[in-house]
């Protein structure tokens, strides 16, 4: 189809603008001009030989990546320029301006022949990678040895790094983040990478170096559970603080009404009881360093009634108000860390209260290494019951070896080895992606370990702390940088036996903040039907849900009510008093009401009695 010597069409941002005799020549000319600074550096030109078309892209939103330009088999980044860079005489933007480095978009990359390393440059090369590690994103570059892990683990791993608790900012005491986590004793990782050091993440660490033994422990670390050393936890391992900030504002309403921060009077609508407001000071705000628990009021606030009141026969009565206070969330407690009172742009008062609570690692908390190896604490064991090495080293964490082969995270094991070697030698190790050769790294670490009298593969003879018996197998032991993730049981655990119900349906509420129950859905219902467990089903669907006592008129079959003043049931439809009480789900009563709203009159006929 492609005829020879066909003119090439040129497309600018996808629109046809003309044609040239040779698209290839045109593209290379355009690139030359771009490198010389005649054309903008933000233009990308690509040429498709198959279609004989040239695409010029100048629009926004293209992902572009920097490459070093290679010309005639030589990198434009010469030793001379590198020297100048090191001395700080020139910087990166200088290189971009002077045509040493250029940015390519996805389309222009199709025309590029990129050498991975300087030694790979040959006559066909057009570009050189700045570093092989640039193929990973920023987060992945904070990990170490990612090139030895399965690709599928990289997105998982970078997700976990993002969820880790650490020193996220140093001005945390002046901030009122809705929720924040701070590690008590953050550490620099024993093994880190070039990008990690360059970005100065060392000043904002996200985890701690754990001594890890790859061993099972009486079945308590099955299926990605981990075992923690209680003494290590008591020394501060993985300990963090949790900040929760509450915000409230004195809103203005039409009719010159507004909210007021104050301790509500007992006559207020929705008054929570005297004890709930006990910790407030006179201005209606809580004091600093006050211990608070679930349901305690942090900011007392009264609002005007939602609807305008009717005038009573006594004229305008006493102004009614309703309680609109901020309380500590259900299931949470802590100490009031700080309170901030300020003014909004709308000239109303705004208050922020930060509550702090210490979170010691407990069973159910989530930890992860930088290789997508997550685990939930399955048991916290006393140090004397943990396995120990011949030197008396007790691991902080026991990782189940079954989690390794199927996930193929060899980087995790390399880090264990590197962390151990580094700890013995007293210096941090380098784990920059593609910086070394796997075998050489293992040999290098092995030699370091042997120099300090350890096994070169990191294996240790372990002795069971409970029985004192030697383990039959050698156990791989090392040091890994672990992150504590912000999924913690104490923020998720919830139980309910009785509790609040929805107004409309009289059924139990849903969700943790409303102390809700767990849904007994259609499929669960079918399972009970399938088992023929009729009484259990009735208990779930009626007794534990929306049981209601309803009066039905024996005469007309309509729903009536019980008049407690006259002490008799009343049917409003036929004005009779001959009614019977039935136990029924409130949802059915609601259904009858809704059918009535459709102008259909449902009647209930009673049988027997």
């Amino acid at each position: 189809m492609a005829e020879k010597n066909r003119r090439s069409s040129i497309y600018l941002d996808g629109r046809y603008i003309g044609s040239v005799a040779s698209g290839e020549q045109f593209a290379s000319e355009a690139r030359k001009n771009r490198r010389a600074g005649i054309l903008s550096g933000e233009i990308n030109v690509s040429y498709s030989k198959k279609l004989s078309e040239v695409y010029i892209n100048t629009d926004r939103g293209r992902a572009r990546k920097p490459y070093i330009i290679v010309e005639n088999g030589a990198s434009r980044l010469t030793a001379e320029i590198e020297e100048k860079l090191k001395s700080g005489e020139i910087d990166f933007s200088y290189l971009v301006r002077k045509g040493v480095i250029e940015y390519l978009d996805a389309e222009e990359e199709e025309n590029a022949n990129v050498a991975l390393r300087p030694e790979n440059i040959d006559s066909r090369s057009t570009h050189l990678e700045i570093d092989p590690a640039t193929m990973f994103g920023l987060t992945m570059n904070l990990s170490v040895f990612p090139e030895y892990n399965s690709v599928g683990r990289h997105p998982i791993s970078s997700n976990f790094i993002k969820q880790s608790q650490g020193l996220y900012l140093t001005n945390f005491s002046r901030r009122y983040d809705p929720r924040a986590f701070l590690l008590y004793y953050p550490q620099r990782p024993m093994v880190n990478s070039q990008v990690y050091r360059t970005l100065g993440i060392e000043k904002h660490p996200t985890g701690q170096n754990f001594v890890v033994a790859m061993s099972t422990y009486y079945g308590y670390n099955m299926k990605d559970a981990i075992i923690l050393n209680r003494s290590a936890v008591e020394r501060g391992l993985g300990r963090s603080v949790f900040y929760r900030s509450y915000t409230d504002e004195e809103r203005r309403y039409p009719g010159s009404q507004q909210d007021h921060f104050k301790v509500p009077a007992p006559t207020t609508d929705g008054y929570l009881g005297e004890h709930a407001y006990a910790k407030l000071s006179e201005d209606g705000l809580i004091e600093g360093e006050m211990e608070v628990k679930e349901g305690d009021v942090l900011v007392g606030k009264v609002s005007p009634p939602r609807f305008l009141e009717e005038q009573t026969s006594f004229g305008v009565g006493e102004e009614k108000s309703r309680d609109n206070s901020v309380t500590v969330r259900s299931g949470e407690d802590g100490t009031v860390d700080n309170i901030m009172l300020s003014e909004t742009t709308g000239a109303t008062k705004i208050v922020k209260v930060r509550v702090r609570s210490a979170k010691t690692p407990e069973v159910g908390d989530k930890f992860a290494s930088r290789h997508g190896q997550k685990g939930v604490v399955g048991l916290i064991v006393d140090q004397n019951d943990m396995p120990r090495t011949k030197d008396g080293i007790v691991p902080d964490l026991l990782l189940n070896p079954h989690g390794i082969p199927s996930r193929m995270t060899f980087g995790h094991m390399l880090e264990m080895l590197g962390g151990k070697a580094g700890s013995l030698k007293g210096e941090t190790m380098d784990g920059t992606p593609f910086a070394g050769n796997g075998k050489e790294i293992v040999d290098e670490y092995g030699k370091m370990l042997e120099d300090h009298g350890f096994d070169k593969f990191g294996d240790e003879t372990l002795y069971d702390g409970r029985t004192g018996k030697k383990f039959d197998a050698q156990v791989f032991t090392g040091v890994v940088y672990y992150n504590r993730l912000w999924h913690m049981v104490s923020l998720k655990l919830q139980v309910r036996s009785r509790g609040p119900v929805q107004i409309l349906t009289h059924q139990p509420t849903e969700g943790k903040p409303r102390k809700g129950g767990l849904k007994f859905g259609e499929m669960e219902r079918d399972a009970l039907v399938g088992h023929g467990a009729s009484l259990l089903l009735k208990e779930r669907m009626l007794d534990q849900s929306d049981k209601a006592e309803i009066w039905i008129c024996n005469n007309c079959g309509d729903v009536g009510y019980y008049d407690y003043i006259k002490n008799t049931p009343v049917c409003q439809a036929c004005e009779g008093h001959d009614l019977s009480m039935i136990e029924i789900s409130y949802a059915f009563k609601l259904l009858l009401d809704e059918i009535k709203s459709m102008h259909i009159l449902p009647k209930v006929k009673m049988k027997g009695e």
Partner: protein
Amino acid sequence: MSETEKTQFTVVPGEAVGTVAAQSIGEQSTQMILRTFHAAGIASVVTTKGLPRLIELIDARKKPKFPTMQISMEKGVESKYEKVRDIWRKLEDVKVKSLKLNVDEDFRTSSMVITLDPEKLSFFELTARQVVSKLSKLEGVEAELDGGAIKVKAKKKEGIKATRTTFVNILDTSVSGVPGINKALIQQNDDGTYYITTSGSNMEEVLKIDGVDKKGVYSNNPFEVARIYGVEAARNLIANELLTTIKEEGLTVSFRHIGLLADAMTYTGTIRSAGRHGIAGDKDSVLARAAYEETVKHFINASVFGEKDQLKGVAENILIGKQIGLGTGRIKLAVKKEDIKKLSEK
């Protein structure tokens, strides 16, 4: 079957067989993939498989996406390839367009010249004369033999569009074979006997062909089978098709569940689907129907006709919060009045 097995497999009174059947089939069919794969290069008839076929059967579609038949031969015929081949020739629906070598259309005179392929004619054992006689039976068409070609002319001149339709109709005229059967293949059993599989089905016509075993004709269209053999045969067909479809996916569901579903679909005498136009839509209870689909429609119709709900079914009783009449709710304790007297006397 031993006594212990008998008690083990006997369904207890009050067992929720329908729910259990639904769960048993439903659980397995989540394993099925919607997309089906076709093996290329194997001489076989294309059929729907997997979940789409299951849905087709349960929804009681009037015609399957790929209707097929398996036709067994009579005793004296089944092992003789030549005789089976004769029957096969009678089966495949041969149209004029599949015999043509070349067609010359003239819209000015509303006539066309069809050159027939002598190889194809002899393959189907047909003559050009037979084709002409078929064509002349068409309304408003004159056909005559002209050497190796057939001259066809529309009797009335009606403009290009009408002529075009006539031409298409002429080419679509079937010359021989059974209408509806697009393709037939002769296949061999393990014991050396032959049978024929087809794509497309027409049971009525196939049964008229001599040499076909009247008891060995199988179609995968339940409605066709119900029309000819009755609803019991259709029930067996539905159950069998469901079972083989599930088995082909490497899954196992007890036949009792499938049989129950097929029974529920056919016990009224016609084939009903399992959805809102069938089993679920024919329920006696207004509340049960309204709880499934098209709630408002059912309530309005119920009010128009003054329907009564006896509150006997499972769905209604769960809705109002009564104990359901299944399983443990099936059994009631009944005491005779005389017995109460006797007890109180003691």
